[in-house]
């Protein structure tokens, strides 16, 4: 998992798998980032080829944490497998999802 900050937006790039092994780490990381109010966060899923229910759950928990602290979260570049799960679980209605990173960044302006 890599974290960078660009133009006031925090970008978390997740690894190849977002599963039960790393979901707690993502939740903890977002919790720390969300301590600042009005955090703008993008979860970049470009490298993530596999996501499971724990991964989906960590994304939901992350969004909740951010909203609670007046922040917001967008998701960028989900794989076909992730898109399938988001649609199946209707999370595509909950998350703001962008296929392009620039669009995700611009969405905060």
């Amino acid at each position: 998992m890599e974290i960078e900050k660009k133009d006031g937006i925090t970008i978390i790039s997740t690894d190849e798998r977002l599963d039960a092994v790393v979901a707690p780490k993502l939740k903890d990381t977002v919790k720390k980032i969300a301590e600042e109010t009005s955090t703008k966060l993008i979860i970049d899923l470009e490298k993530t080829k596999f996501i499971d229910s724990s991964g989906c759950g960590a994304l939901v928990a992350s969004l909740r944490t951010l909203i609670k602290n007046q922040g917001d979260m967008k998701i960028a570049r989900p794989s076909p497998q992730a898109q399938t799960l988001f649609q199946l679980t209707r999370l595509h209605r909950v998350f703001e999802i962008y296929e392009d990173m620039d669009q995700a960044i611009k969405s905060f302006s």
Partner: protein
Amino acid sequence: MDNPIKVKIDSTADLLLLRPLDLFVRQLVQQLPAFSDHPSDVDGIELAFNEAYTNVSRHAYKGLNTKGPISIEIIVYDDRLEIYLEDRGTSFDPANVKTPDLDVPRDGGLGVWFIKKFMDQALYSTCDGKNVLLMMKRFPNS
């Protein structure tokens, strides 16, 4: 197939082994000609196995000081694939898991629902202290 292909792995239910076992299942399924043009089925089977193994690792032996055993058996028939997961922990019947209300975003509890969604059959049984989950997937076009 007179002699179905079988593989059995006796392991410890530990999330440390989730990824290597997941990849083993994925690569096995990918090599089956029946799934060669069905990558979403391969993803679905991998996900179902992942969820089942995660559930056993997280919950079956909760409260014990030691990691418990899990046996994984995969059988490939002419027309279907069967995956068995056997543990000796606390029993847990997926049939009792309510269908999630998808209008309320959840941060957990979707694993069993995914198993049911992506496999053609998910049967759970408990006997003599052994819990067995059978997940079956028919071959596409069979």
